[in-house]
């Protein structure tokens, strides 16, 4: 058991190192940060001097090694664009993304499960079929378009909700800002979280539905019905409960996907989170920020993978490490 966990952690670290290497090898293709850092009156000497100062004249394995050396000590370098430590910037931006992801995730889970159960119970009902079909519209349009259409409808035409940003935020403690405590903060969350959560909601809804249908056919459910238990008890106490294992797994894996897809939602809504930071970093070729963001995302994904794997072994040691879902 312990050996399994150690081996799995070892593999995870290897995965992280490879991800980092791949990321670093492509940074030089993103562009050259120097041009963005110097004005139009720069000379060739200025360019070369800055390049040397930043260590960009080194081959990429050397740059990667330096990055790892720093990262191991919790130092991700200084942003080319902002001239501030990257870790500071990431900490500042993380709350916005995490709050957005949390709300989107909650929306996806609550509505996904509710609609999934509904469409499973009323399998052949007209409403259920309409829900099934319309839910597909959400995954048949690109996220950025959905976001822009929502802004057009609810901000511009109706004027109900803000078109960008986080609204007013309140500082909690040293490093957390929250939009949950103000009216404008809550209003600002609505459109971005719908945009971001729509895909996951559809996914969860469909998963819950098919798992429910599967379970509802099982003998013990028939026995439960035969015993005279009400539909409500059968559907929720027995059937839903038994669909939860795969659903929880997928939700866990989708959490990472939500944070990754936040890049697009944050760009459309000018949401001041890490995804927007990353897009800006690409435009500016802010290598320290890009590197730190990719590492952060990788740590998160690999961490989630690891936890799910370990949990599986704890729940059922017979289970081979095999999961479905997520992409």
């Amino acid at each position, binding site marked *: 058991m312990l050996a399994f966990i150690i081996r799995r952690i070892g593999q995870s670290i290897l995965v992280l190192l490879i991800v980092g290497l791949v990321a670093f090898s492509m940074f030089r293709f993103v562009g*050259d940060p120097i041009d963005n850092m110097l004005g139009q009156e720069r000379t060739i000497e200025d360019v070369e001097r800055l390049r040397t100062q930043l260590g960009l004249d080194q081959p990429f394995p050397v740059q990667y090694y330096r990055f790892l050396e720093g990262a191991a000590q919790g130092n991700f370098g*200084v942003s080319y664009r902002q*001239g501030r430590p990257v870790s500071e910037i990431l900490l500042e931006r993380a709350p916005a993304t995490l709050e957005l992801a949390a709300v989107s995730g909650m929306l996806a889970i609550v509505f996904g499960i509710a609609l999934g159960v509904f469409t499973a119970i009323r399998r052949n009902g007209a409403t259920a079929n309409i829900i099934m079909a319309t839910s597909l519209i959400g995954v048949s349009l690109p996220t950025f378009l959905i976001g822009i259409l929502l802004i057009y409808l609810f901000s511009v035409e109706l004027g109900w909700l803000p*078109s960008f940003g986080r609204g007013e*935020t309140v*500082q909690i403690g040293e490093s957390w800002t929250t939009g949950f405590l103000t009216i404008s903060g809550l209003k600002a969350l609505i459109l971005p979280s719908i945009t971001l959560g729509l895909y996951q909601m559809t996914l969860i809804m469909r998963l819950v539905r098919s798992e429910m249908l599967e379970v509802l056919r099982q003998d013990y459910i028939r026995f439960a019905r035969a015993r005279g238990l009400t539909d409500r008890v059968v559907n929720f106490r027995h059937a839903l409960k038994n669909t939860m294992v795969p659903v929880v797994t997928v939700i866990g894996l989708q959490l990472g996907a939500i944070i990754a897809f936040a890049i697009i939602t944050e760009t459309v809504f000018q949401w001041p989170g890490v995804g927007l930071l990353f897009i800006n970093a690409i435009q500016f070729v802010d290598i320290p920020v890009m590197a730190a963001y990719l590492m952060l995302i990788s740590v998160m994904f690999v961490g989630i993978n690891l936890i799910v794997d370990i949990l599986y072994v704890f729940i059922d040691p017979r289970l081979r490490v095999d999961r479905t879902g997520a992409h």
Partner: protein
Amino acid sequence: MPKLTYAVALSVAVSSPVMAAEFQWAGKTDPQTMDPHAVSSAPVLGFLNNVYDGLVRMSKDMEVEPSLAESWEPIGAGEGWRFTLRQGVTFHDGATFDADDVLFSYERASDESSDVRSWFSPVTEVKVVDDYTVEFYTNAPNPLFPASIANWMMMDRGWAEANNATRPDKESGNFATLNVNGTGAFKLEDRQPGLSTTLVPNESWWDNAEHNITKATFTPIQNPATAVAALLSGDVDFVEPVPIQDAARLEADPNINVIRGIETRTIMLGFAHEADTLKYGASAGQPNPFQDVRVREAVAKAINVDAILRTIWRGSAEPASQLVTPALSGFSEVNAARPAFDIEGAKALLAEAGYADGFGFGLKCPNDRYPNDEAVCQAITAMLAQVGIQVELDAMPVSNYWPELRADNFDMYLLGWSPGGSLDHEHPLRFLASTPNEEKRLGSWNFGGYSNARLDEALPSILSEIDPDKRQALIDEVTGIYQDEVAYVPLYVQPLVWGTRSNIQLTQRPDNFFMLRWVTVN
């Protein structure tokens, strides 16, 4: 204590005629630093002009006017310039502004680590005569010097030394990257890079405040559609730039005013003058046709600039005939005509040059540098196809674009030029038309390697000539040269389109700098 980091625009109707108000504005780019000497880019210098002052400044119609210097005069027969400083000016922290701060700001801005040091390349020595007099000596008579330092901002020596910020630090930043201690009309209250920057009025500013703002917050919004939505929904009071296609819709909205102007940036096509062969497209590897002036002229004639301006720019840009706009000093009136659109003429020139059947080449284009850059390049692709030249268009983000141009990876390219610093014709002559020469710091953006001996010879005289008529005659001459040789194909002058809520009054300056001190919220 909960701290409010964002405020929502107030749109309260109050009866008093001049009411104080909060102001929200959005722009495409966040100023990447608060250090006025670290980065020489329009978003940074434009923003910092609100919190810092220079010795001189630009008025609403781009005239040089006194700022921290009350007056200035040439020393002797053009040995330099003597500035008399304004007395009683204080920095935001209360320290007094004097000649030593000017000297310090000079040392700081002309240091190797500064991005604005090219402004001081003609300066040989700076002398503090007394607390309120400073002399700048130049290597040659320099009539444009006062105008060229309009964006050179004054910093307090004591503050910089106390905070370890005596030199700009682009790589790792320092105290001045995030903090401001200027003499300007506004003080920095809160700075969250990339998110929001809040300014409040400087109550002890030396000049009379025209504005009625109590607090102003800037938010960068990159996606233009989101910015327009924010303006339409009233989330912000002012947006720049407004995408040109949205101007009409915004104008139709009674709550919104659109302010149009002409910018200082000229958009042009450049050629690989020096390359012996073409690098891209169907004729890659074959001799470079653009070495023949007739082919370059054919390109100029084949492009229907009017059509580009009418559709893509919806009638709000001006065609360009030369490297600067008519609004800038040194514009050559005698050369104000641009080649007419003439497909037959273009075909005839191509046939004459031996390319009756056309050829294929590659056009490099940025897709996020100038407004509509990619659409314009696409249109050019179609227009050249109509005279038989097949263009392979390669559009890319600007962070890839400059390295490509520097590496000579182009046959033809799109370039925009705004003469920062002097705002004079000499600026593009130095950077775009001079033969590239690293030592003399000339032609550093002349990627194609255009070269003309007479132009190179005339440039030093243009820079030092004090008599405006003689100077203009020289400029007219070299403008004629680079036009005849079709060194570049100037296309159009970019328009400035700003959008405000209709209760806002402000002034648009042609250099696209937004001055909060000219804003009135009604």
